[in-house]
């Protein structure tokens, strides 16, 4: 278990990191970045896997199954849409030379 103050420090440092990363982003990347950060919290999937892995009663298994299902959707969907968006940004750079 993570100790109380250690957790607080972790929260604080992670919050600053998140703030710093976004603060310097050009507007054109806001949408892909929102989509990308949406994918990043798809890591929730591993938490749901642990919850289902430790489930013993049928109720817990149903809840765990829903959790894993939703978490996997977050991760997979978030990845695909972000990749598709960023792919276009790459291809648009090629056309930059021939206006």
């Amino acid at each position, binding site marked *: 278990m993570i100790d109380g103050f250690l957790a607080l420090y972790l929260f604080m440092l992670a919050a600053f*990191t998140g703030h710093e990363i976004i603060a310097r982003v050009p507007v054109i990347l806001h949408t892909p970045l929102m989509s990308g950060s949406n994918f990043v*919290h798809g890591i929730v999937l591993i938490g749901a896997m642990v919850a*289902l892995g430790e489930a013993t009663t049928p109720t817990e298994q149903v809840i765990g199954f829903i959790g894993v299902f939703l978490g996997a959707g977050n991760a997979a969907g978030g990845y695909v849409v972000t990749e598709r968006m960023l792919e276009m940004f790459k291809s648009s750079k090629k*056309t930059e030379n021939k206006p």
Partner: protein
Amino acid sequence: MNSAQVISYLIQASYFIAAVLLIMGIKRMSSPVTARSGIQWAGVGVLVAVIATFFHHGGAHGIFIENAALIFVAIAISTVIAWYSGKRVAMTAMPQMVALYNGMGGGSAAAIGASALLGFAAIANAPRFVPGMPAVNPSQIVLAVIGALIGSISFTGSLIAFAKLQGWMDKTFRFSGQQLVNGLCFLAAVVLGAMVVLHPQTQTIVLFFAAALLFGILMTLPIGGADMPVVISLYNAFTGLAVGFEGYVQGNIALIIAGIVVGAAGTLLTRLMAKAMNRSISNVLFSNFGSGGGAAQEISGSLKPIEADDAASLLYMAEKIIIVPGYGMAVAQAQHKIWELSKNLIDRGKSVKFAIHPVAGRMPGHMNVLLAEAGVPYDLIADMDDVNPEFPNCDVAIVIGANDVVNPVAKTDKSSPIYGMPILDVAKAKQVIVIKRGKGTGFAGIENALFYQDNCRMLYADGQAAASGLIAGLKAVDGGGGH
């Protein structure tokens, strides 16, 4: 050190690597050059963590996690559906897909909270102390409840946002005393949450989740479509926080770091967006925007239609042209035709620029994505602050599918719901051509004073048809006496 300890150690190491990859991934996504590798790094991070988790507490009945088959089936079904839908969805529908996937993440965090709380209830209500029973840290219950509350709100709220943007639902849903009902629902969720903390019991937990899920729905129902980008971004931050809190409950550092980083980044992004619309977040959530200002000033003048050929002549004579695209252009899938028109104009020696309002589209930067898809180079796309001083020198401004973001009422009419919102100063251009399908109002439901100005002409047509007409018109002028 026995083999179980070695495996546990390796899993922790994988989580650490995953956390590093996720943070570096977001960092790389914040620059156009490295953005694409950023999502791939983050993807590898999640993949590593998922594979490692299959070995969590393995050993008792084999090397895999308990219920491994169930877990695998859930992941397989969900991944196939999400992957397929994500690949197929049109770029214009991206915001609602982000809302949908985000809601799923929130729901997942809420499910983690639910199973943790049910576990705590089982411990608290055990008839006697069983040796080896885990002790419950009160802060764990508190954070499990807070994470579950935020996750549940994000889950149902995002689903409503998805349904609204997808057009499955009326834009707004209001009744008198709504704010009171919403407030009571939130209060009920908080009180039930406190009761769960003080005395975890299954019935209380069920009621708590019911209240939290219901509040997510009630909170999102009255919010108008124009405000949806801010709301989606807010729920994105919510899900991040919920994931972080549930990560604490499980003692999973990867969840804490990734969740809180997204929570903080999402909160900042939400504020940036709200600022671009000149509104506070609380204003977005609790005021009835988008219902149409009943007391708005009367607009004098008339709508003056123009044919594509005449509009093409105006363009032919112009030197400096600014195109203002809005979401309507993307809905009509006209961005490719508009870029073709722009190339035609550039070939004739005109200066062409695209002016983008910060909230054009359904998310900040959404319009840039849509123009990039059509192949418009970056250097032709200008932000609001850079392009606004150029409108007085602009010969022709073409407004296509944009409405509220060019409405001068935002500067002049204090009673208007969009008063104070920064707008593109299209009204100052020498000549304005508005391409529009019909006479309807914009997303905010407000009449646009720009359309009634003397220097404004309305080209009533579908976006693609209008652009084709203008291209044909230009070529006709070329052929007949253009030289």
